[in-house]
């Protein structure tokens, strides 16, 4: 039994204008998609060059889902993106050089070398740092929404989880509490069909993860996560509904994890045909084609954009490499906050 609503694809430029996006916004989205993928591609190279310690994850295939949702967020909303959601960091304005610096464990990364990967956050950009324990930050994001409700602020929390993480009790406690109190929070499930090597049918037994929304008294929506505009529209609806006091939504973005779980994983357990079929739906190619067809994107514009992004990333890598490794003794700092730190406004 299908319970969740299946979102329609986005059609014309007119429709998009109604959803609040001008042509410039569309180009910005495209740029964010390119930067998102570019950061991860460069990161992968740096990793293979031995410049990134530990492990390395990408969200290839998930760029549109991440960028689409983040684009729909307001400036004072908060988000708790995960390891496939680089696009959220980019849209919120985290500078690529700081992302590379974080990857490389440099002092200039948001985590100052104390944490790596995409485990980082600039709270002034409204981002909560992910923890590896999936999805332990979901109840935390619900707590942000609770605070917004208590203070009667028109702000929304957005929180992400995967098809695998959907099996964890934290998703349940978070969605249940949010449903009971009708809190302003949007739950985004990046359903990329795999949880490390584990396929969906070993993670859950309902048709759609979004069907579970009914278990918590709110709406579930399934959207094609490779269609950045459809994601944007549905995320926008959900976010504005939450902002208006309408309670949570569970938005399932259907995507595909186009690479291994992490750099060490060749994903040989994923059927080739599955990857090939999804490659046809590459979110960036799709949006590019859409822009050409509906928004008159020219070769010239594109070349400019691409070389711009290339420059940005090259500068970013250079700047990150210039950032020093942290001093060993800084390992001992910052376990506890000092009282004065409460005087600064966090998550403005």
């Amino acid at each position: 039994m299908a319970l969740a609503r299946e979102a329609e694809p986005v059609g014309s430029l007119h429709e998009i204008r109604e959803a609040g996006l001008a042509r410039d916004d569309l180009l910005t989205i495209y740029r964010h998609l390119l930067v998102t993928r570019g950061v991860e591609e460069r990161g992968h190279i740096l990793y293979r060059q031995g410049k990134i310690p530990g492990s390395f994850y990408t969200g290839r295939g998930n760029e549109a889902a991440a960028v689409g949702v983040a684009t729909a967020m307001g400036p004072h909303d908060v988000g708790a993106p995960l390891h496939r959601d680089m696009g959220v960091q980019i849209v919120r304005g985290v500078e690529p050089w700081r992302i590379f610096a974080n990857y490389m464990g440099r002092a200039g990364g948001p985590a100052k070398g104390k944490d790596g990967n995409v485990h980082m956050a600039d709270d002034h950009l409204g981002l909560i740092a992910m923890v590896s324990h999936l999805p332990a930050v979901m109840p935390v994001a619900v707590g942000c929404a609770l605070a917004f409700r208590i203070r009667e602020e028109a702000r929304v929390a957005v929180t992400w989880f995967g098809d695998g993480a959907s099996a964890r009790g934290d998703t349940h406690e978070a969605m249940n509490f949010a449903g009971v109190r009708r809190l302003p929070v949007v739950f985004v499930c990046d359903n990329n069909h795999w949880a490390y090597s584990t396929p969906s049918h070993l993670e859950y037994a309902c048709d759609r993860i979004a069907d579970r929304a009914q278990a918590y008294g709110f709406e579930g929506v399934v959207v094609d996560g490779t269609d950045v505009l459809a994601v944007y529209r549905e995320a926008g609806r959900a976010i504005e509904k939450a902002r208006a006091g309408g309670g949570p939504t569970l938005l399932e973005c259907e995507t595909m994890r186009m690479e291994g779980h992490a750099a060490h994983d060749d994903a040989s357990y994923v059927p080739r045909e599955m990857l090939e079929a999804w490659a046809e739906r590459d979110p960036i190619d799709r949006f590019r084609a859409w822009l050409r067809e509906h928004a008159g994107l020219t070769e010239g514009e594109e070349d400019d954009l691409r070389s711009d992004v290339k420059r940005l990333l090259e500068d970013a890598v250079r700047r990150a490499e210039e950032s020093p490794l942290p001093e060993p003794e800084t390992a001992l700092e910052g376990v506890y906050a000092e009282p004065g730190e409460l005087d600064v406004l966090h998550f403005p």
Partner: protein
Amino acid sequence: MAELTYVQAISQALVEELRRDERVFVIGQDVGMFGGAFKVTKGLQEEFGEWRVIDAPLSEVAIVGGAIGAALVGLRPIAEIQFADFVSIAWDQLTTVAAKQHYRAGTPVPLVVRLPSGGGFSGGPFHSQSPESSFAHVPGLKIACPATPADAKGLLVSALADPNPVLYFEHKHLYRRIKGEVPDGRFAVPFGKARIHREGSDATVVTWGAMVHTAAEAAEIVAADGISAEILDLRTLAPWDREAVLGSVAKTSKLLVLHEDVRTGGFGAEIAATVAEEAFESLDAPITRIAAPDTPVPFSPPLERRFIPQVEDVARGLRELAAY
């Protein structure tokens, strides 16, 4: 100054802080009209409404995780876990998210979790535990264990002012058994400063929570034999007052560490190990640890008495130390 019970002191701190600072709110199971399992929050929802005194679902993860989130964005949550035992469910939220947040991301988590702990009334294995030692091993958390009404209030005030996650263990068995003078109005008892509960010269007892009173009774008994025990109430385990402990041991040369939690790996081991490292030259006798045996907390009264350190046990320990 008013004479208050331990539970009244906690309630008073809550109501005063809720009035003083609108960022403060309370969340937990049955904390609203019902006033909580121990009536600590009685009357608060009437005064502050259902969005400042929030009845949560039976969801320790949502309560603690939610409180962490609210703290991140600027509120001052006080989460109540109905019995400290149930905090095991939120272990991950506290140790993975709250404790490591500032180190990794630089954002403070001004969170207080209230944890009614301890045994002594046949609560059995799941309503009697003293889990403070487990958390004292986790960098990033602070831990308060008040023993008196004045400290119950003053440490709660400090906990709320602290920019870090604080686990505040209130001993259930003290709620209505202990009365004491509590200064009027707002006052803070600083973290990391032990309190000399009783001065003495022959041996130092380091303890906290309800065991402070057990130690005091034992000290009274052995005083009749001419043994003068100094009782140091740590008040907070993280941070803990090493200087005060080392200072007292320098004076008495003998140390008895006492706690209600089980012995192996309890926080008493840390205290004993620290003294063995740093006051090696000043010790005149082996360190004595008195703690619960390494078992779950049993239910039946004769078993529970065997489990929780009793006044006689401490008196015996002090006599043996004095005789060494």
